Each structure stands twice: as C-alpha cells, then as structure tokens.
C-alpha cells in the first residue's frame, strides 16, 4: 500500500512540475509534449476501463476520440463562419464555449458508442475485436470522403475553446486544465470500478456465463461500460483538437486504436493510473527514437512483440508493486 502511494504522489508532483521545469530548462515544447501525454493517457484510461476491467477488447477506440474531436471542430467551424449546423431541427450557429462543446463531444461519442456497442456486444471474443475495428474504420472512411468538413484535409480549429477565466491559448493553462480533467476522469473511473456496477463488470471479465447463471443480464452492464468509455474517449478527442488546433481523419485511423491498446498494455492492464505511465513511455520513446531515425516503427514493432511476450504486468505494476494489480 505504501509503495503505491509513494509512486502516485511522486507521479503527481512530477506532472505538476512539468511547466516550471520546462521554463527553467528553456524547452517550452516539453509542455506541448506533456499535454499530449495527458490526453493520450485519458483516452487510454477510458479504453482500459472496458478492456482491463470489462474484458471487452475494443480495437476501435480511436473512433470515439475522433468523434469527440470532430464534434468540437465542426461546432467551432460553424461558429467561425456563422453558418448553421446542418441536420438540426432548429437553427444553431455553433459555439466556441468549451462548456457546451466538450460535453457535446462526450455526448456524441457516447451515442455512437451506444450504437456500435449494442451491435458489437451481440458477440464476444475475437468477433468483438474485428467488429469494433470495422466500425471504427467505417467512421474513418466517412470522414475521409465527406467533403463538407474537409474530407482528407481535415478541419482547422481557428481558435481554441473558451472557458471563462482561463486563457486556453496559453499552453501552460491548457496543460493544467488537461491535467485537472485527467485526474477527475481517473477518479470517476476508479470510483466506478469499485462500485456495485464495477463489481459486476469485473466479474463478467472473469466468468461471464457464471454471472448470467446467477441472474445478471451481463450485456446491459457491458454496454453501459462501453458507452462510458466512449464518452471519456470523446472528452480526450475534444482536448486533442484543442491541443493541435486541427482534426483530420487520421485521428480515427485504426493504427491510433492500436496505439491506445499499446499504451494500456504498457501501463498495465486494469490499472487506470498505469495509462499515464504507458502514454508517457510510448510518446517520449517515439520522440526520442524519431530524433535518431525516421524509421521509428521498425523499432516499435519488435518492441511491442517483446512486451507482449515477456512483460505482461505492465510498467505500473512493476513500479507500484504487486498490490497495485487490479487497481
């Protein structure tokens, strides 16, 4: 217990110290990279919620990231050029307010998760993996070919979302807001994991037929978890589009879903906090190796195979000790 608390406290202190340290070192880019780590950590944690605790191996989580990002991008683009958002029963010209944009992003992602989940959860196991991948690819294809919102060129976000009292155009403010949202999201997900709902979810991962035989309609629980994961994925998407001030179909590409799964495994399956470690390691490694060679994938590929074959516990389990497992 103590070792885990120390690791968590040290991690939090480190994350809080990133902007001042970057300023001292004269490396403002570090804040941008760290923001990216936090956003990916959030997306991966929402994926870990269903993979690590619910046993649902989704290979399409980038879809929710992309939907969240496109929601913000589309709403903001209408606010920018003063046109009405199509397909609505009333005239609405979009908004720049994060207080509307971001919850909307979560809602849209959750709705799509509801539909995709309801279809995919008619099956399980390897079918589930392939179906979630296929649906995500369908959305990728849709955004790629839909000319209205940039098609393959994507959409630029002309200004970051607005929150009263905060200047999100300032990278340091944006970083701290992202950190706060990540912490809140992790705490919420953690709470869910240990609630009655989470108990059913975790039991279903271990032995779903037995759970049904006890009288629990497992699919409803799994579907709700899938929707919750989709919503937090959407929030990560809303943050991403603000971070890069751009959204393109590449955000929904299936390799992105693969990366998120890699982060989950690197951090440790079923350890929400591990997602932060996993994201940090993967993205920083990418940054470092990309400095040596443009062919960083030739390193990452075999590295992944080795991680799967030999390091199943994940980095968080290794850092925080055995009692952190199932955290």
């Amino acid at each position, binding site marked *: 217990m103590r070792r885990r608390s120390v690791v968590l406290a040290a991690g939090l202190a480190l994350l809080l110290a990133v902007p001042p340290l970057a300023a001292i070192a004269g490396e403002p880019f570090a804040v941008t990279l760290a923001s990216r780590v936090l956003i990916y950590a959030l997306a991966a944690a929402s994926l870990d919620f269903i993979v690590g605790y619910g046993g649902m191996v989704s290979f399409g989580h980038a879809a929710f990231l992309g939907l969240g990002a496109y929601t913000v991008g589309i709403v903001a683009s209408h606010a920018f050029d003063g046109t009405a958002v199509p397909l609505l029963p009333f005239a609405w010209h979009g908004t720049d307010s994060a207080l509307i944009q971001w919850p909307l992003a979560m809602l849209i992602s959750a709705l799509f998760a509801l539909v995709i989940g309801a279809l995919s959860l008619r099956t399980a196991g390897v079918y589930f993996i392939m179906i979630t991948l296929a649906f995500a690819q369908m959305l990728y294809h849709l955004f790629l070919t839909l000319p209205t919102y940039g098609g393959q060129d994507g959409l630029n976000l002309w200004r970051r979302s607005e929150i009263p009292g905060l200047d999100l155009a300032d990278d340091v403010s944006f970083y701290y807001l992202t950190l706060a949202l990540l912490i809140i999201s992790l705490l919420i997900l953690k709470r869910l994991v240990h*609630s*009655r709902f989470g108990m059913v979810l975790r039991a279903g991962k*271990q032995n779903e037929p037995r*759970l049904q035989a*006890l009288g*629990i309609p497992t699919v409803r629980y799994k579907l709700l978890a899938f929707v919750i994961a989709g919503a937090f994925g959407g929030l990560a998407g809303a943050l991403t589009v603000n971070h890069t001030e751009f959204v393109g179909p590449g955000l929904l590409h299936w390799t992105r879903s693969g990366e998120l799964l890699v982060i989950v495994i690197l951090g440790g399956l079923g350890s929400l906090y591990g997602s932060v470690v996993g994201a940090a390691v993967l993205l920083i490694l990418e940054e470092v190796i990309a400095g040596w060679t443009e062919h960083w994938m030739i390193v990452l590929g075999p590295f992944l195979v080795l991680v799967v074959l030999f390091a199943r516990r994940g980095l968080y389990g290794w850092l925080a000790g055995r009692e952190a497992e199932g955290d």
Partner: protein
Amino acid sequence: MTDAILEVQGLSKFFGAVAASDSLTFQVERGCCHALIGPNGAGKSTAIAQITGEVRPDGGSIRFNGREISRWPVHRRARAGLNRSYQITSIFPAFSALDTVALAVLARQPHAFRFWRDARRDERLRRSARSFLDRVGLGDRADVRAGDLAHGEQRQLEVAMVLATNPQLVLLDEPMAGMGRAETQQMLDILRPLKGSLSLLLVEHDMDVVFALADVVTVLVKGRVIASGTPSSIRADADVRRAYLGDGA
C-alpha cells in the same frame, strides 16, 4: 394433483444425429430432492443446461412454477428462482470468497446500476454475503481469493453462491465431483437441511450420495427416461440394473 415446481415435457436435443435428450419427460415435486442418474453420455448435464437456458432445446416444454420458460434467457430464469451449481467449479478466481458471494447477493436485487458507493464498504451487502459463507462453513475464509481456495472449499463456495441468489429450485450438477470421503460427508451435511425449504434436482454419480439425499430417482439412458421412482424401487428395478448399475451390482 401433485405440486410440481418443475415439469419437463417431451424435451428433445440433438447434436447431429446423437440424441442428448429424446422426448425427456419428468417432474420435480416442490420441496423434494429429485436425482437424475445414468451412465456417462446419458444426457444428464445437457438436460440441466436446457433447464437453465444455457442450451436451447430443439423441442419440448419446460414449466417452472406453472410457467413456460423454455424461451427465457438464462438470467431471467435465474431471477425467477431457478439456479444451478456446476460440475466443473465455476467461480470468479480473482475475487475474494466474500466478494464472490456478494455478487450473488447483488444478482437477486433488481439491478446493480449503482455507480458511486464502494461495494467493498457496503455493510449490508457484506453482512448478507457473510451469512451465506457461514452457512456453508467458509466463514473464516471470507478474505481468501476464490482461486486460492482448496477444491472442496470452492465447491462449498459454489453452493453459497447459489443459495445467495435466493433460489426455489437448485440444480446440482455433480456437487461431489472430485471430493474425498470427508468432504463429501461435509457437503451432504450442507445439502440435506436444504430439502423442504428448497427443491433440488441432483445429478450425481456417487450412488451413496443419491440414496442418501434423493426422494425420487429418474434414470436416463441415451437421453430417455428408462425408469423413475423411489430410491428403493429403483434399486430393485431390473431394467436399471441391466442398463446402468450392471447386473452384478
């Protein structure tokens, strides 16, 4: 008329050309222990799986408390009060014994869509779960991981789980499988007092257990009922002796 809790009528299930259940008909009286016996491959486990809904029958009807349930999903039947234990231990290995039973307690409540309160600090849930652990003699093993319990203890845990769902009819699929003499005796002591308040449908190979528990015995061979009656009449039945117990038995 008699008061049957379960009526199985003309149940049929084929795997390819092999009949696992062939016009299977029998009924379980309320408060009784009814044993299904038969040689390996007689279709006992398939019959159980059809009654719980894990296997879909090709034809026939299953009535529970007078209601046709053969098209209900598994969880609905369990909620109606029909529950089972498994021949091969089926538990949640990463949960503690207490959490495992707590899960079963949850299962009989309308839903578990509660998101905020920590289930580990939910005293009502834990107290209820603990009482079932006590009933099967696992009270002092509450915090052990279910996967780390001894085989016999896992079988007891199975029974605690089934009881915690508040069943009316319990299907016991070889509850003594893989147990030693002493463990079997212990399990008999747990099961015997259940009769009366619950109805039991028992599949078991150990004839001593069958004759110690059952009020009625039905003998299956190749998915068909070849005899049914009190234990003593079954013991005396010539067909049964030939088909199953072996002439020398």
